[in-house]
């Protein structure tokens, strides 16, 4: 059987799901390389997708279809990536609430990647701390880091405080649930997961929830044909 492909093209990284004979195969490539790809995607989502070509699905809709609503029937799912944050909440397995911080990119993944490069740090070596910067705006957060570093604070500790601030924001943004199911690139950021765990229980779901959602939407559409 011919394989089908699904794409979640984020600002920095693109997540791809290939399905053939019910076997799933996931991969990640740089979004800048997607232009060179000749793959014909069944459904696409994500900030960097060209919505005028092929079938596009809204990111929050993809997120909602990417999780098992029967298992997560009263849970909050947060997707945190390079550019933005979005979450949905189910009640009795039905959609209940959502939000999407659509405007400010500076407090999410891309900024952390930039900070790690700037200070030559390894994300795996950062330790979570309860100390945090107020990262209402990432630019103000950056200013705090630079002030602290110039006053002799260890760079890795300063970046950890920044990440802790983002974790605290994520907790408030999702309306302070008892548990958060985490989707997106931040699942692989142990410092962030540990920081968020100071406030609520975190269950990482990995980076492919949205492409799984696209596949589930595809299956639903096929069943309805």
């Amino acid at each position, binding site marked *: 059987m011919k394989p089908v492909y699904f794409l979640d093209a984020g600002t920095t990284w693109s997540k791809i799901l290939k399905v053939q004979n019910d076997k799933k195969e996931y991969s990640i490539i740089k979004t800048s390389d997607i232009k060179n790809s000749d793959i014909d995607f069944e459904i696409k989502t994500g900030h960097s997708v060209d919505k005028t070509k092929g079938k596009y699905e*809204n990111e929050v809709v993809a997120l*909602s279809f990417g999780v098992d609503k029967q298992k997560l029937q009263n849970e909050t799912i947060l997707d945190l990536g390079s550019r933005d944050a979005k979450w949905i909440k189910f009640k009795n397995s039905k*959609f209940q609430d*959502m939000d999407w911080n*659509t405007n400010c990119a500076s407090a999410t993944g891309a900024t952390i990647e930039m900070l790690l490069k700037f200070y030559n740090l390894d994300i795996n070596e950062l330790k979570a701390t309860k100390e945090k910067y107020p990262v209402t705006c990432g630019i103000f957060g950056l200013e705090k880091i630079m002030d602290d570093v110039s006053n002799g604070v260890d760079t890795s500790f300063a970046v950890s405080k920044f990440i802790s601030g983002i974790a605290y924001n994520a907790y408030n943004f999702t309306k302070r649930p008892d548990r958060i199911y985490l989707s997106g690139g931040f699942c692989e950021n142990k410092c962030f997961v540990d920081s968020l765990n100071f406030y609520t229980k975190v269950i990482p779901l990995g980076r492919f929830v949205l492409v799984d959602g696209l596949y589930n939407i595809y299956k639903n559409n096929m069943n309805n044909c």
Partner: protein
Amino acid sequence: MKDIIAFWGYPHPNLIKKTKEEYKNAVWLDLDVDFNSPKTSILPENYCSIIKNIFNNALFYKERIIKILAPIGRDKCDSALFAVEILKNEGFIIETSVFEEKEYKKDKIYISSSNLPLRKKVELITANIIEQKDYSYLPQTKPSFGFWGVPPNDLSILELFPDDTHVFGWMRCVEQMSPYDLELEQFVDKNIGTVFFAQTFCAKNQLAKYLADKYQGLYIDIDGLSSNSTRAKIEAFLRLR
């Protein structure tokens, strides 16, 4: 040649009546609306787009404006009170107005709950401020969604909603001729998903966020024009709710 009566918000009906009698052939201009008038630098850059529209439009049409009817009560906002002082200094003739009493309040609404596209509903409600028309003939609908708030600067976001979306908040108060009515302004249909909108930097954000949390609706604030992401957020809410 001066031929325009400008206004914002909902001037008191008596003031509208008196002005109409006095200036029978005048053109009426709603300064709240974004007509792409050239930008002025009188206000801070980060400020409510609607108040910015008032200044941009007023100064662009200054040579044609006879006078401005300026609501300054709780039916509008504190920014309007300050705007009056500045516009007076800019040479405009201003008649202030406070429309807080309930004696004009209509019992029924027809536009907010009609089958018209949401944008058309909002445009009719605001047009009805100056030219009161009878819309009791409009077919009524059972709502699938609600839209709460004031007329957005970017009216195109209203096109995302289905036609059976009902109007709540200040716009509903305007349709009922009761622009300062906190109880009515907070009324929504609890059985439907509602998008609670306020213009960025507007004090109504306080109420919009509170009501959105209370009724599990979607709170949005937009400054100027909506971004693709804000539109996607509304689309997701309408799809999933």
